[in-house]
């Protein structure tokens, strides 16, 4: 058996040289009673360790790791439009839209046939990019990931576009510009818009299917 210091020193040397040391093998080199202590030291080392000096061959070996390739593919898929991602995941799972809708209806106990039908219609609209995926509820995404047999992250809706690093902060509010217009004109515009909204019939209340597809992450 090796001492903690020797095993640690060997691991650090192997890590820095890009020799991809095996953690479990390293831990097994010391007596069982010392393994937790060595694990704590190695964990600390990996938090501060530099990138190993990998050779080109080692980098090629890492690049060929199936898990890495799957993750890179998931990253690439993540920047595809959401509807295309859903369609691809559904095709991979070999499920028709109707079957996904049926399983969702079962999961959320949507007993009425019309609800399963509307669920299928919502799914079609999603795949056709006619619905904003950011309005989907978190529980719907959980259920879809489970039905399609994929990691939940693969269905993460696109983030809002990010400003470039170092960009100037947004201006302090467009209202400032409005004060430069004719006050009577913009007050009349607002009153007109409010009147029209008041006269329009109220939309029907959301049911469970609407909440799943339109209710937002907490819906």
């Amino acid at each position, binding site marked *: 058996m090796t001492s903690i210091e020797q095993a640690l020193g060997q691991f650090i040397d192997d890590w820095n040289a890009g020799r991809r040391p095996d953690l479990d093998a390293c831990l097994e080199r010391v007596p069982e009673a010392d393994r937790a202590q060595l694990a704590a030291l*190695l964990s600390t080392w990996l938090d501060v360790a530099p990138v190993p000096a990998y050779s080109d061959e080692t980098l090629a070996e890492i690049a060929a790791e199936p898990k890495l390739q799957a993750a890179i593919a998931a*990253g690439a898929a*993540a920047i595809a439009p959401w509807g295309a991602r859903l369609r691809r995941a559904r095709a991979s799972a070999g499920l028709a839209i109707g079957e996904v809708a049926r399983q969702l209806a079962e999961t959320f106990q949507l007993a009425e046939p019309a609800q399963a039908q509307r669920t299928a219609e919502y799914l079609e609209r999603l795949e056709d990019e006619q619905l904003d995926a950011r309005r989907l509820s978190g529980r719907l995404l959980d259920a879809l990931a489970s039905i399609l047999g994929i990691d939940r992250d693969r269905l993460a809706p696109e983030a809002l576009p990010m400003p470039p690093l170092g960009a100037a902060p947004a201006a302090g509010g467009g209202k400032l510009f409005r004060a430069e217009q004719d006050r009577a004109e913009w007050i009349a515009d607002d009153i007109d818009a409010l009147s029209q909204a008041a006269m329009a019939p109220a939309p029907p209340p959301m049911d469970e299917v609407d909440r799943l597809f339109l209710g937002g992450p907490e819906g």
Partner: protein
Amino acid sequence: VGRIENEVLRRFVAARDAGDAAAADRHYNQLMQLYFDRVGAWVRFESGSRLDAQEREDAVERALVRISVNLRLSFNGSSVGEWVSAARTAVKFACIDTQRASIRKRKHEVPLDETRSDDDDRGRYDDAEHREAMDRLAQAEADAARVEFFAAEAAFLDWAAGKLSPRRREVLELMRQGKATREIMEILGIGENNVHQTYRRILEDLRTLHDDYTP
């Protein structure tokens, strides 16, 4: 130290935000390769004995997917410290997700063989145990969201290095430059055992200092 990752990360973020997909892909792939082994090791430490070998493999894959998607869609940091912090958070959540999936599976597994003995139920959860296990995971998830990781702050290392003895500070700097034990022995004129003991003391000091550190 950290120059390679810093440069690759900077180029990735710049290319991504500029809409240069080809360059973003190149730097993104490179970053994922450079961190592949570290993610595997983090999962190993994070999961401890809670995950078996197969579950650990699943957790590595989940973690890589999380990191990959996060980097593509929402990572908006500019330093390796922020990237490491985001990656470690992803590892923590991936381990929790894997454990949760495993608990769900055990809860819902129905043995196909109806002639099974009572012993076949070993390893499955009853309702109360299942709820308790899920509650523990929910708590772990809430904790994970709050955790700030060790290496997340370059400021921590700057601060901690100042607390180490001059010799340990020197050795830490050499370790983080990727120097081998032999080289450190030659530079400092000390023996192998001495260098190895110093490694251990430095890492123990860093663990202790981290507990005292206030960002």
